[in-house]
């Protein structure tokens, strides 16, 4: 085997051995490549690899940029353009009060993603594509043809212009978020559409579930969780549907461990005996997905029955709890207390009533209620997940209400909140980027997340739970305008995983095969790109000039470039500029060095006495000259070079310091001087505005107080027998949403397994490791089963985000992508109810599936000589 063949083999190997990726990295990022400025071919391999071996290399802080719920420091060991290893933060000694920003399992595998053999190498088009779409039914199974960047840009420009001319701006659907400079989660390519008059946008509450609207109307805004050190003041912490060990990786779970060590009792309410519960919980309380509201109402019932609620707190700080404290204009009969007692509907919400719905034993409900009401101070911390359910608003209403009944608001160790990530205002912050962009006139960016104003009659956007139906049926729900016509001809995906990550993949595929033109920009053949006509290969952050990010309230990071762009990949910023040039349009642009410099120069850190902020970075005239940017010298705490080399600035913390944060403390201290932003200035257990807001979206209605009404595909949906199980879809350590699903090390560590209780398995003759078929109203998937008593009987779960692998002949998804199974059910404020899906499982009698990590990678083109 000659050298080039050897590398060719290495490139197409499922496993990137040290040899193969070293050589590959060397080929693409070695000295010669750096000197040449762009991606060189294999001829430089040997020279670069030899140089690499002789050089010591250096550690640089690199991006770990994913939407994972954490933000940690990652360093790459770069030996002459070759990344040989990663490590995490070692910039100061680690201690519980002043922890290093330690990276998780996914960050630790980052170089296997960046240098994966399955990176997209060249622009490409579908073989049977033609202007107008060609054989559209072949999307997802056609062959790929390598094309030049010039041809790729030309196809985009020509087809986009044609579609715009023939069908107008409202025929283009872009699933990404537009932004000028590609900050995280935003896509500079889609700004092309904004300049050309705009595009239909995608909106949904997505991760947050139903929390936003209840937060706005019941407490005047989004709650923050108390400071991480304040958790140590709590005597009781209830983690509700919250599994930070999976969903908030990095240091977060260790903060709870410190609280436990400081004496907090921890209770986890969850359908699964989660990793968090196993490690932290003194008590695990199982509750069926989508039924948490019933459990909360029964907790309230026990409190009311025994007069355990903090009545003084409720009377002073809240409205809507009882008939004597109603907001202005509300029907006194519509108070929470009488609803719980069943005064008007004849149904007292007793633990026995709730138990039949939520599956929690009545005595456990009473015990939980007693502990919640009497242990003070206590922290009630939900995750987003229980609200990622159909009719999830009622859960948010109930969680706030029951939390507030205990009076744990605005006091040390007391909080009612929906994020297990500890919070507080930043102690160190970056300067503004100094960029601007033209907003999308058809669907303004402020409406992308979590939702548009349903009363505003000017926007055109599709909800994540309705988009594919809208494309297929030509109609979407437009808030108070009701159903409106829509005619989508082009789908553009960038900085998005929409097809894989939104409900009903099967309808999504159908919608993709209907339109005239599908374009996707990505790093791998993701589900979006698989069903596209034209694919742009995009660089990762490791191949870009660097950037800064706020990691958490105590830390900011500065990332550096680790590698030259691989093959012909370009950053989405470069692609947007190339497209603009091709299309003859002007887009705003300032040099990226200036964007970085602005953030550094404007960075501020809190003064030691907490009295305000001061400049963080000292900048000299020489620095400005060296950077070639506009700016003024300034004095700060650390030099620009020190910050750049270290890659992190972190504020040191101590228990009892001045920097703690307690949610709603000012309100608690003086509710008259510091009212919350609700009509009453108080916490609104009853909110007519909330009910009105939800109704305006046009799908369903909720009461102004927390009531339990069975959600679509909730527990009650299992009772008729066809789909007797409840499927829910947690975040899983293998991925950050869909990102990392292709990383073989993570596939090896975390199979895409389905968790099933032994009772349900036995009833179906299923044993651990069997291949099972999961069927819902929306689709079918095959997976291996993990039979585990740690999941509640009657429920099954599998991690969200696996890359769909649908067999077109059978319609079965072989990968276990949750959106092959979850339905598009638009409810409330446009929530994606991923944790309410009815399912059935049977043992698969066909060929068993193989281990995930042994599946072939999606390698389209090898390296051409």
């Amino acid at each position, binding site marked *: 085997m000659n050298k080039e063949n050897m590398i060719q083999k290495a490139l197409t190997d*499922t*496993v990137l*051995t*040290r040899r193969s990726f070293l050589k590959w990295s060397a080929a693409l990022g070695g000295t010669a490549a750096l000197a040449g400025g762009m991606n060189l071919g294999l001829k430089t391999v040997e020279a670069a690899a030899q140089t690499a071996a002789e050089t010591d290399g250096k550690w640089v802080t690199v991006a770990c940029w994913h939407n994972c719920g954490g933000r940690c420091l990652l360093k790459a060991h770069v030996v002459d353009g070759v990344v040989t*290893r*990663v*490590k*995490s933060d*070692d910039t100061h000694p*680690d201690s519980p009060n002043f922890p290093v920003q*330690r*990276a*998780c*399992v996914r960050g*630790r*595998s980052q170089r296997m993603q960046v240098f994966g053999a399955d990176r997209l190498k060249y622009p490409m088009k579908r073989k049977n594509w033609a202007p107008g779409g060609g054989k559209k039914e072949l999307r997802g199974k056609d062959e790929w043809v390598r094309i030049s960047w010039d041809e790729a840009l030309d196809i985009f420009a020509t087809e986009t212009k044609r579609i715009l001319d023939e069908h107008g701006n409202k025929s283009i659907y872009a699933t990404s978020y537009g932004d000028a400079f590609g900050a995280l989660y935003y896509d500079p390519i889609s700004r092309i559409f904004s300049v050309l008059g705009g595009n239909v946008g995608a909106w949904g509450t997505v991760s947050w579930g139903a929390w936003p609207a209840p937060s706005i109307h019941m407490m005047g805004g989004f709650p923050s969780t108390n400071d991480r050190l304040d958790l140590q003041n709590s005597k009781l912490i209830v983690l509700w549907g919250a599994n930070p*060990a999976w969903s908030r*990786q*990095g*240091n977060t*779970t*260790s903060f709870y*461990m410190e609280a436990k060590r400081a004496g907090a009792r921890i209770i986890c309410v969850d359908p699964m*005996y989660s*990793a*968090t519960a*196993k*490690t932290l919980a003194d008590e*695990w309380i199982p509750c069926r997905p989508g039924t948490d509201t019933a459990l909360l109402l029964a907790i309230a019932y026990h409190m009311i029955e025994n007069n355990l609620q903090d009545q003084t707190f409720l009377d002073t700080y809240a409205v809507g709890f009882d008939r004597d404290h109603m907001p202005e204009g509300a029907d006194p009969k519509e108070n929470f207390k009488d609803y719980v007692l069943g005064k008007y509907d004849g149904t007292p919400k007793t633990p026995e009533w709730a*138990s039949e719905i939520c*599956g*929690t*034993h*009545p005595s*456990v409900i009473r015990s939980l209620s007693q502990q919640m009401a009497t242990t003070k101070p206590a922290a009630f911390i939900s995750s987003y997940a229980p609200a990622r359910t159909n009719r999830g608003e009622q859960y948010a209403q109930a969680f706030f209400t029951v939390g507030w009944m205990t009076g744990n608001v605005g006091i040390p160790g007391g909080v009612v909140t929906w994020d297990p990530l500890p919070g507080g205002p930043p102690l160190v912050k970056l300067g503004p980027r100094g960029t601007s962009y033209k907003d999308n006139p058809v669907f303004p960016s402020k409406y992308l997340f979590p939702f548009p104003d349903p009363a505003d009659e000017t926007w055109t956007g599709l909800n994540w739970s309705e988009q594919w139906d809208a494309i297929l049926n030509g109609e979407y729900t437009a808030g108070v305008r009701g159903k409106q016509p829509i005619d989508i001809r082009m789908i553009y995906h960038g900085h998005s995983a929409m097809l894989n990550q939104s409900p009903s993949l099967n309808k999504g595929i159908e919608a993709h095969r209907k339109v005239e033109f599908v374009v996707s920009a990505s790093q791998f053949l993701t589900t979006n790109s698989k069903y596209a006509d034209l694919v742009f290969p995009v660089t990762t952050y490791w191949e870009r000039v660097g950037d800064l990010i706020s990691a958490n309230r105590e830390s900011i990071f500065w990332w550096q470039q680790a590698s030259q762009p691989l093959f012909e990949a370009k950053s989405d910023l470069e692609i947007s500029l190339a497209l603009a040039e091709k299309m003859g349009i002007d887009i705003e642009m300032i040099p990226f060095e200036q964007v970085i410099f602005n953030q550094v120069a404007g960075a501020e850190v809190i003064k030691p006495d907490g009295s305000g902020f001061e400049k963080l970075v000292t900048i000299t005239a020489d620095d400005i000259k060296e950077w070639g940017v506009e700016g003024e010298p300034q004095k700060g705490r650390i030099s620009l070079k020190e910050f750049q080399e270290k890659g992190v600035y972190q504020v040191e913390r101590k228990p009892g310091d001045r920097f703690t944060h307690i949610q709603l403390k000012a309100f608690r201290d003086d509710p008259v001087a510091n009212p919350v932003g609700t009509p009453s200035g108080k916490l609104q257990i009853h909110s007519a505005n909330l009910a009105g807001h939800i109704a305006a979206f046009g799908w369903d209605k909720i009461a102004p107080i927390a009531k339990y009404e069975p959600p679509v595909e909730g527990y009650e949906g299992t009772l008729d027998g066809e789909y007797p199980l409840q499927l829910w879809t947690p975040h899983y*350590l293998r991925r950050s949403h869909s990102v990392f699903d292709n990383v*073989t*090390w*993570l596939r*090896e*560590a*975390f*199979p895409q*397994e389905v968790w099933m*209780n*032994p*009772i349900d398995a036995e009833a179906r003759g299923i044993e*651990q*490791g069997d291949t099972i078929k999961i069927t819902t109203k929306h689709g079918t998937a095959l997976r*291996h*089963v*993990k039979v*585990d*008593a*740690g999941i*509640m*009987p009657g429920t099954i779960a599998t991690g969200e985000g696996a890359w769909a692998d649908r067999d077109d002949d059978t319609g079965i998804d072989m990968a276990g992508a949750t959106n092959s199974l979850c339905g598009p059910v638009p409810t409330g404020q446009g929530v994606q109810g991923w944790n309410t899906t009815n399912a059935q499982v049977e043992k698969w009698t066909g060929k068993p599936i*193989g*281990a995930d*990590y042994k599946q072939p990678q999606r390698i389209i083109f090898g390296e051409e000589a």
Partner: protein
Amino acid sequence: MAKQKAFYFDASACIGCKACQIACKDKHDLPLGVRWRRVFEYGGGSWVEQNGVKVPSSLFSSYLSTACQHCESPVCRDVCPVQAITKREDGIVILDSEKCIGCRYCEWACPYSAPQFNEETKAMTKCHFCYDLQAQGLNPACVDACVMRCLDYGELDELRAKYGDLNEIEPLPTNEITNPALVITPHKHSQKSGEGTGRILNLEEEV
């Protein structure tokens, strides 16, 4: 007592996240199928009906991160027909893959499955405690990777003085064969090796 480097593992704090396993793979560029450090989940229990409601009964589960124990009496060394495995003065057990003939006898003999076969090179490999990092005054990769700070290392006698002398919990084998250089703080659910009532739950150990 002779010098003996040892790992410490706090089972009460491990969340089973496998950052240690991946950090190890990254440090040593281990191919698929080779995991010098592994994380197990061990548990059991069932559900019973109480007044018509299914409730968990004696449910238990916890995680275990384990690598080579650098045993005081390493059977892998004892059985190797070509003396590819040796114990250093500091107690670290190392394997010379160049000398290895790939007979896999050590893999069979080690009760911890620490020596692992590299299909590509047809030779055994195993955790060498990142002795290269230790020589530079740095910690083993797995220790520095733990987000819960439940891995540590040091001299065995010092670790025992600090954390006690427990070195056998399920699903590890009992300590009598090899005298593992390991110190464990148990989880509340940990069971003594040989007396376990649960099973390894991980699917990845099966398929």
